[in-house]
């Protein structure tokens, strides 16, 4: 495990070949650049964080660091399910920040050639493609390659904060 700047940022370009950790989420398959993955751990209870967006489940102790964990189903607006034995938290690093994503199950490590990555088509308003940096196929399966930095983008979180302040105002 190195603390050097991660190649995740470089992987933001459309032709993003390399190794990906694939995982399942609501019957679809997604991939995260493996160079950004720090750890995979079984689901453990986290400490809830107040005044946070609903998809932020809380924080966990990663060898002394307090790391936020988000539920990717909630992040993508998918229906919530009970956590099972296969539910895992993937700890991902973006620049020097760590965060955990809870997914249904990890599946595989994929070798993806740069020219095998296709840009995500526009699905319309139903699916937000901002988090997806490309699509690739593994045999019959389609794998959506995620942009970890986008997952962590905080502008939406600021919006949540604004909403909370509005709630404060209404609460009284």
């Amino acid at each position, binding site marked *: 495990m190195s603390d050097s700047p991660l190649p995740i940022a470089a992987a933001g370009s459309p032709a993003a070949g390399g190794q990906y950790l694939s995982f399942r989420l609501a019957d679809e398959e997604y991939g995260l650049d493996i160079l950004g993955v720090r750890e995979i751990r079984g689901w453990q*209870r*986290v*400490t*809830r*964080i*107040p*005044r*946070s967006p609903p998809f*932020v489940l*809380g*924080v*966990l*102790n990663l060898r*002394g*660091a*307090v*790391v*936020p964990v988000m539920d990717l189903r909630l992040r993508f607006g998918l229906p919530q399910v009970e956590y099972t034995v296969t539910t895992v938290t993937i700890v991902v690093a973006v620049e020097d*920040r*760590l*965060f955990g994503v809870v997914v249904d199950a990890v599946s595989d490590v994929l070798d993806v050639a740069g020219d095998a990555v296709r840009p995500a088509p526009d699905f319309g308003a139903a699916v937000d493609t901002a988090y997806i940096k490309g699509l690739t196929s593994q045999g019959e399966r389609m794998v959506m390659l995620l942009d970890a930095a986008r997952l962590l983008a*905080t502008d939406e*979180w600021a919006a949540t904060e604004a909403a909370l*302040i509005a709630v*404060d*105002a*209404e*609460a*009284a």
Partner: protein
Amino acid sequence: MATIDLAQFHQTFFDESFEGLDAMEAGLLGLDGADADLVNTIFRAAHSIKGGAGTFGFPEVAAFTHVAEELLDDLRSGKREATPQLADVLLRAVDALRGMLTRARHGEPARDAESDAVLDDLRSQLTGAPSAPQPSAGTEVALAPPAATGWDVVFRPHPQLLRTGNDPLRLLRELEALGPLTVEPEIERLPALQALDPESCVLGWRLRLDAPVSRAAVTAVFEWIEDDCELAVEPIMSCSNEPETAAASPVQQIALVPPRAAMAPAAAAASGPLAPAAPTRARVVAGRGDAEAGSIRVGTDKIDQLINTVGELVITQSMLSQLGERFEPALLEALRAGLVQLERNTRELQESVMRIRMLPIGTVFHRFPRLVHDLGGKLGKQVRLDLHGADTELDKTVLEKIGDPLVHLVRNAIDHGLESPERRRAAGKPEVGTLRLNAFHRGGSIVIEIADDGAGLDRDAIVRKAVERGLIADGSSLDDAAVAELIFQPGFSTAAVTTDVSGRGVGMDVVRRNVIALNGHVGVRSRPGEGTTFTITLPLTLAIIDGLTALVGGESYIVPLVAIVESLQLKPGQVNRVGSGGEVFRFRDSWLPIVRLHALFGCADAITEPIEGIVVVAEGDGRRVGLLVDALAGQQQAVIKSLDAHYRRIEGVSGATILGDGSVALIVDVPGLARLAQRRAAA
């Protein structure tokens, strides 16, 4: 003689030089009368900087300091009187030197236009007629009509000179900083090669300095080794006033290489010019620039204590491991005792390590005399600065970050707080205003007070401004605390005219933000006509707090012990409802609002009736609130982990900590909670 890489001492040189500059500054600010001790202190500081700069290869710094030193020498010998103008020029020289040293530290050229301008000022002070002109014959060479155009110096160090740690090369370099120098070695004492002792200095030098400097300047170079050498300094007189310096002996104008060779004469031929070595040194300096913030000076007493504690820890550890090897139930008591001791050792070790990071706040305070001096002069106000508690120690990180807010508060106090001498006189107050800075420990916190005896906050102006800015509605009635609170609002500044001192839009809100970022609080008290006091409360360290674990709906929160006044269980009837929503209860002589932690943090399954749970009376920002929690689960030390390292700041939460079972608990920020609750109530 082995070549020593001088770069390894650069850090120390810079540290000491900056300290020296601080001492000079402090001395110059106090330089009102003819205090010989003070002048000597200033002189010594300048002299050390010059010497160090010469030794470590910063000739520009040495040359600059030299000129300042000459002025100081005149002061010291009574040839010149300490006038405010002179003190001002010297203060600017201190500033310029700081700049030069900073640049030198980063491997940049030390000189810049600014330093050159100050140097010119220094020189013109020096050549301008001294205010007490009593040229004692022979010494006042620069001005006396039969001026010496230079000096012939015979310098024969005693053989043991090198053993005392002195380097003749350094002296020659220092001399060269004064002007063009011609060096001629005397090799008469040089023994045969096999008899040569590399540690004795067998060379002497005949030096010719072609610069019209004072004799004192020349002898000062040799001041430290007066007793270790033969020294003769003779003026070179010239009938014509033409300074025929460089042309005098072009052949002998040798770069200062031979002196080094002289220390090991056999190596003379091999010794190349020094110039190629210089870039190497510059690189080293640049390489260290990154680490400069990482150094800290620690007193030996602290280190000794640390070693003692570690020693005890080792003893405890070996005792416990012995116990473990042949453990039987009968030894349970001994095991318990051992664990208690381990706990004590650990705690002591923790405290000792923390103490290493603690520095006296005086290092921040010392910049204020200068600031007050300059600002008071600029604004035409007379200010007396009272500094108290400069020895109070606080964490280095806190110390580094509290400087700017303090400077801001001091500027504010002089600009807005203190009145002009006329107005003070009219109000029947002494013309000289007093600004008092006081630092002290209270509980687990450091308190810094910035108090002025000025006019106090102008209530009407603040309210008017707040209405203007739309911060409050016109005609709202506010108590004094609420009015004072307004000045901490973003974009609030009452200065009618924007001066270069204050009123630039960054205001008290920035101060408050900075202090809050350090887990501290800032408050203000003001009495009309009597003055304003700002109080900054800071944690002793950013790393560890003592806290009480509070349970709310199955979750644990840590409430900092410093914030807790009392915990109590309310009885039915003690809770009153104010208006539509707010609940209050009587605590001693006041009514405190009940803040429901579960509501602010959105905890499910928590106790919602105040009389069923525990109310923790907590204080922050000068306000007291009653926090409603389910239960308390004991006291513990919490190592603070920042939430924004990987996540973000959460209002009402100052950080997180790891509990004994490895789970994370949040540390509540009492003032933040109080503000949050107030915002909800106010809406």
